[in-house]
């Protein structure tokens, strides 16, 4: 009786286990379908649906490794690399071989050290993993370990012959950077032969042409249109003291700005080239001041220069000539300024660190025609020649796989103005930091914080208006804070910016702050 009962109990247990196993099998099929669907949704550009589907798979069964791996792939495409890494690590715990994908996530996140470690582990476990070798090659290329990169690309090619064109191209790039041009030529030619119409073949053709000494040229065109709100469209506390404090307050307004820039960039070799560009800046300002409701500013700038760059050195010598006109729309006077500027810069890189020095030297000729005002019957139109020199040294730290940098700088600046009704000079220094970070495939963030201290000499020889201020000496402390966020696709983008300037001065008239909001569209070809 007891034996019979036990036998029945065992059979019932077996039955339950079978039912559970078959349910699990059904469930697995459903989960596998969800994974397949999530991957296809991802490839079809349905990112949100892919995320929902992959999430559903891991919610249905938290220990379903392929579900976590699919979720990791979705997160990687969404550039949520921390989440991607977590998902891949969980998938790995559950026995799914995701080392190559995990390494790819680290690579995308710019963590080259972890990427190399994981990918090396993946290739050690199996030499047949083309993707792991390939990502290891790209990682080594970024690390400038060119021999290791070439070895990894070669192994990727052996493991997966369909990677021939890409791996040969990048192997050729590594050879070029190492200085082995003959090997590079051979590999680039093979890259073209392997898949003649692919992007890698196209890039190989361009690189070959540069290696062969042919001059390559690129043309770039940029156009931008933006609107700006400015808490002080015109800050006009003239040192002549012609305006009262009351007059210079309440000068907020807005403007529309059009920026056009076309550049021709001939390259004489892989490292050396030139730049010729023309830029037009046109803005129409609308001020809330009764005296000058609308005025416009036009600036034409022609730049020509040379540029040299390799893995460790960067040198540029741009020279710019610009002319500018400013005046009220329909008004009877204008201001004219022409400027010559020479801005050499040299930077040297040491891994993730860099140092550099730059100098900005400019000569400006300034004219008022005719004089905007007469003062006590005398034409006090200003004409002058300015010379400004600004010497800076800077340090850079590069992060996120070179997609970001932080550059603190320190500089000294002097200006001398010599002219009719306008002779003065000042000395100053500045310290600041600039940040740029492409934190997403389409998003970039920029920021500037800067301080400039100036001590002026030689006040203007103009008379003082009634209620105005006559300057005898002046020193200013100016703080500048700027931030911008840009979203860019292939040929267009949107950019929003905020700039805040506050100036503290020993002359009360020059104590001010200014906020500028800017939002605009831009296009590039």
């Amino acid at each position, binding site marked *: 009786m007891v034996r019979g009962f036990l036998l029945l109990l065992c059979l019932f247990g077996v039955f339950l286990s079978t039912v559970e196993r078959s349910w699990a099998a059904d469930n697995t099929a459903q989960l596998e379908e969800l994974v*397949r669907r*999530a991957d296809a949704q991802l490839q079809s550009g349905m990112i949100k649906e892919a995320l929902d589907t992959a999430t559903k798979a891991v919610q249905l069964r938290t220990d379903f490794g392929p579900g976590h791996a699919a979720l990791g792939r979705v997160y990687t495409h969404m550039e949520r690399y921390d989440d991607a890494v977590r998902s891949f690590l969980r998938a790995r715990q559950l026995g799914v071989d995701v080392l190559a994908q995990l390494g790819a996530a680290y690579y995308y996140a710019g963590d080259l050290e972890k990427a190399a470690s994981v990918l090396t582990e993946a290739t050690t476990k199996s030499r047949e993993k083309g993707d792991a070798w390939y990502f290891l090659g790209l990682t080594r290329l970024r690390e400038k370990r060119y021999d290791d990169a070439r070895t990894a690309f070669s192994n990727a090619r052996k493991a997966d012959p369909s990677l021939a064109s890409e791996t040969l191209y990048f192997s050729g790039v590594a050879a070029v950077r190492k200085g082995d041009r003959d090997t590079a030529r051979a590999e680039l030619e093979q890259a073209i032969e392997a898949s003649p119409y692919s992007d890698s073949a196209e*890039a190989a053709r361009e690189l070959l042409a540069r290696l062969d000494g042919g001059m390559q040229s690129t043309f770039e065109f940029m156009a931008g249109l933006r609107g700006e709100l400015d808490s002080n469209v015109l800050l*006009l506390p003239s040192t002549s003291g012609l305006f009262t404090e009351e*007059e210079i307050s309440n000068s907020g307004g807005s403007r529309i700005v059009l920026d056009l820039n076309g550049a021709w960039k001939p390259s004489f070799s892989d490292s050396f080239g030139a730049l010729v560009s023309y830029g037009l800046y046109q803005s129409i300002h609308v001020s809330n001041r009764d005296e*000058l409701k609308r005025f416009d*500013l036009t600036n034409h700038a022609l730049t020509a220069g040379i540029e040299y760059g390799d893995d460790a050195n960067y040198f540029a010598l741009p020279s710019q000539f610009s002319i500018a006109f400013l005046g009220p729309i329909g008004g009877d006077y204008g201001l004219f300024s022409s400027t010559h500027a020479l801005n050499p810069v040299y930077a040297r890189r040491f891994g993730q660190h860099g140092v550099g020095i*730059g100098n900005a030297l400019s000569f400006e000729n300034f004219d008022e025609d005719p004089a905007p005002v007469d003062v006590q019957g005398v034409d006090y139109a200003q004409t002058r020649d300015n010379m400004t020199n600004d010497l800076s040294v800077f340090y850079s730290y590069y992060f996120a796989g070179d997609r970001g940098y932080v550059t603190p700088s320190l500089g000294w600046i002097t200006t001398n103005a010599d002219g009719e009704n306008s002779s003065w000079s000042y000395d100053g220094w500045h310290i600041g930091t600039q940040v740029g970070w492409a934190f997403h495939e389409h998003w970039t963030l920029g920021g500037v914080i800067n301080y400039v201290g100036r001590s002026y000499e030689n006040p203007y020889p103009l008379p003082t208006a009634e209620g105005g201020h006559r300057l005898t000496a002046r020193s200013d402390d100016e703080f500048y804070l700027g931030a911008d966020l840009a979203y860019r696709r292939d040929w267009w983008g949107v950019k929003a910016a905020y700039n805040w300037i506050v100036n503290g001065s020993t002359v009360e008239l020059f104590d001010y702050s200014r906020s500028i909001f800017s939002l605009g569209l831009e296009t590039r070809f």
Partner: protein
Amino acid sequence: MRTIVLSLAFLLAADAAWAAGSSIGTATVVKGGVTVERSAQKGRWVNVQPGDLVFQGDKLKTLSDGVLKLTLKDDSNVSLSANSELELNEFVYQPGRERRSFFKLWSGKVRAAVSKYMRTSSVQIGTPTAVAGVRGTDFLVSTEGQGQGDETQVVVFEGRVAVKSNWERVAGEVMVQPGEMSRIGRNQAPAVPVKLDYEGMRRAFQTTAVQGQGTLRQRATSQEIRNTAGGFRSTGSVMRAAAATPRQVAPPINQQPVDATRDSALRINIKLPGQK
């Protein structure tokens, strides 16, 4: 009981094997309007969703805004352009041993990137006027004309493709090499292949393969090609950006900037007209 359990397990396994074995591939990229007519449900066209399985006998149609990419069991990719119709007549695949397929393109364009390195392989794409037999790996077949498929064009990107009329009585077969195109009209022998110019080939290569978001590897490739293709422009670009230090952010002279957000060192001294 043991027999019952084993039978149940066998049935489940058989069912799973049938379900897995009967599909020949997956719709890996679906954009816009794409429909399918299953062989068991003739006349009923249903929308294709990303991740749907496709089966032998399916007829697939893309609308004017639709494109479709299939990834087949042998890892080959078949891309269907807009306004196209393709029938998956036959697909046999035994890994490492045999691959045999025949698909009929009733209208439009199909791009086939056939996976390499199979010992025995017969991949054919038929149209109302021609049959293209693949010896190679990546090619494009399009059919057009006033009547349905009056003319077929075969363009080869990689490998070789043998083209002949689909009417047995018309003799002649041409071998189309990479970078070449052959045309074939109804009941005519195929034309001698002509070489296409590079730009035309590249354009066809770029536009006829349905691109998804790309695998992790494909995305990295595009990104790194962009980074490396510019030579010194790219190697120096990061340093160039960082070297643009914020000196002279605000013009320093006696008056304040007209526009402090502008990069150039434009400095203008302005007075208002008629101001006293």
